[in-house]
């Protein structure tokens, strides 16, 4: 995972997830006996480097939110390990941490939620909302704490005049800024953004994306960016991991994934997204059927019932996760022989120009 680094043997990772798994039991019948399990997340391994954004894409039910929540330990994993690097560069096993240790670790990572309307307490002022994590983690108090709150608010584009207002007085974009300020105030190393911009209007979305990028370059934070909008992902992430029915199917540097996807599902995802350029005509791959149920996944490769390239082997044998090119991982039997096109990158750059 961590290859030879240019600066000696410095490991750039801040988050390492190994074989993380979550099975939710399904109980049925009179005695609530466990009948089956929902394989929400199934042996997922990934890592996030310092100052890097890893995007996690997938459709609803793919387990991306469950994975994000397990990483911040809002959900207990069934098995696997989440490790986070602390302030003193030592690894902390989050899955094994308890009590005071977990509480202390919690200030190094944070989560930003999708809905800026329901994720803020309507009865707290902005100052109290942003102050709360500082007080809870005993990082600062009194005037010093208030100074840090104000500094953080200014960082996200709000000011002192907003301090004593309540969330209802703010627009969606401003509320998301408050949510970001609350996540930032403890100087975390990692922020898990769960669909942080999908509920926002396009013009506001651009403001928040710029803010997230700007904060990253100034503060060196890492993001795990959970999203379904591929254009947004291409804009913000250095690497992208694609999930399908609880498993990773492909992971690669952003440009490589968008120009040369190796998994048929990635190809279909890229092809399905409508592109806001009417002069560009491309072949659309419309997938048959729907996302498989994680409680009764198909045999072999989970994607085979919808895959146009499926062969007999795909129906019986689950593909292994392998490195097909440097830093490019994929789980597909036919990844070597298939030449997939995304239609995402404009092959004829003269045909389309960005307007004005």
């Amino acid at each position, binding site marked *: 995972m961590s290859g030879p680094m240019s600066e000696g043997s410095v490991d750039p990772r801040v988050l390492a997830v190994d074989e993380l798994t979550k099975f939710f039991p399904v109980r049925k019948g009179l005695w609530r006996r466990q009948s089956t399990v929902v394989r929400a997340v199934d042996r997922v391994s990934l890592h996030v480097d310092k100052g890097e954004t890893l995007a996690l894409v997938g459709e609803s039910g793919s387990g991306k939110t469950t994975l994000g929540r397990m990483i911040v330990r809002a959900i207990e994993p069934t098995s696997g390990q989440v490790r986070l690097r602390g302030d003193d560069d030592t690894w902390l096993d989050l899955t094994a941490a308890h009590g005071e240790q977990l509480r202390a670790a919690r200030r190094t990572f944070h989560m930003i939620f999708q809905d800026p309307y329901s994720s803020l307490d309507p009865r707290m002022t902005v100052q109290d909302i942003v102050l709360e994590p500082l007080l809870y983690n005993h990082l600062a108090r009194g005037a010093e704490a208030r100074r840090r709150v104000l500094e953080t608010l200014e960082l996200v584009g709000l000011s002192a005049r907003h301090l004593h207002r309540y969330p209802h007085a703010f627009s969606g974009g401003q509320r998301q800024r408050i949510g970001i300020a609350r996540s930032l105030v403890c100087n975390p190393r990692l922020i898990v953004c769960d669909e942080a911009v999908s509920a926002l209007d396009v013009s506001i979305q651009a403001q928040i994306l710029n803010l997230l990028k700007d904060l990253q370059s100034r503060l060196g934070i890492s993001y795990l960016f959970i999203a379904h909008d591929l254009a947004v992902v291409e804009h913000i992430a250095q690497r992208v991991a694609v999930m399908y029915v609880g498993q990773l199917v492909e992971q690669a540097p952003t440009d490589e994934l968008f120009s040369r996807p190796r998994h048929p599902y990635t190809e279909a995802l890229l092809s*399905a*997204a409508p*592109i*806001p350029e009417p*002069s560009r005509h491309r072949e*659309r791959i*419309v997938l048959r059927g*729907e996302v498989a149920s994680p409680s009764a996944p198909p045999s072999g490769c989970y994607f085979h019932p919808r895959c146009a390239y499926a062969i007999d082997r795909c129906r019986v044998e689950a593909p292994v996760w392998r490195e097909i090119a440097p830093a490019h991982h994929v789980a597909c039997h036919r990844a070597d022989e298939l030449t997939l096109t995304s239609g*995402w990158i404009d092959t004829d750059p003269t045909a389309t120009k960005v307007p004005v």
Partner: protein
Amino acid sequence: MNLLELHDLKTYFFSDEGVVKAVDGVSLTVGEREIVGVIGESGCGKSTMAHSLLRLVVPPGEIVQGSAVLTRKDGTVTDVFAHEPDSAELRSIRGNEISMIFQEPMTSFSPVHTIGSQIGEMISLHTDLKPSEIRERVLELLARVGISSPEQRYDEYPHQLSGGMRQRAMIAMALGCRPRIVVADEPTTALDVTIQAQILELMKSLQEQEEMSAIYITHNLGVVAEYVDRVYVMYLGRVVESASTEQLFGKPLHPYTQKLLRSIPRPGKRVDKLDVIEGSVPTPIGLPPQCGFVSRCPSALEGICDGAVPAMTEVEEGHFVRCFLYDEQQEPKDEWADV
């Protein structure tokens, strides 16, 4: 020929804080076999406009002005707004001439009736078919929209269907009486991208086969670019620009449209910083008569743009814009200007 001509629609909400001018003078036409797109951000009035078309606006909302002239299947011409919301005439238009596909298929179906009975109900209201023929028709519709094993789905309840299936059932219901116009309010916003592609392709092929017209109401510029013939851009209750899809994306005129198109991340073209529209949409209560975009517009002219409402003018053939940068013509003040 235009199937529908919406003229100067004003739908206001009379709230305690003041009059919310949700739709403030929208004119729009739908031609035969044409797909018209309405884009805008939340709060721009696009959904209220759609609901007004079928007179689904409830108090404190009220259509205070406007006409919607519809050419019916039998060739007669009628003004939708001339009928009372619960009159027989209007009920003969809803579902039969103009039908609607709502955003959230889970909440727009009744949870306690089967899919089959809900679609069948609409057909029985508008036709004289016998129950057995209605069942036949529903099964045929379900099959047409790509629902597997329609016989089984007929007797299922909405919660037993997945999101994509429910949206298909919704489309089957909307098509039940072969309407001339389908109004789709954010038809795919709640769906995943692969399912969204299925639904949009389905609507496109059905629209071609049935020779229907459609109004797509959406905030997704990608959907507009790929599926729509002509676009109306709405901001703060007014149409600020309208043009063919190629014209609008190729040469946007209104500063809002220009900014909007530049603020979206473009596939395959990564930039360091996205263009943003500073500030946010003002609340449409008690605003003076001015261009709605003036508070966020980089090229606003002091004393001009904040002094009057610009009129819609045709800058090139079929390309209309409401902006003082192109024409000084003003919208005449009406009795509602100062409330």
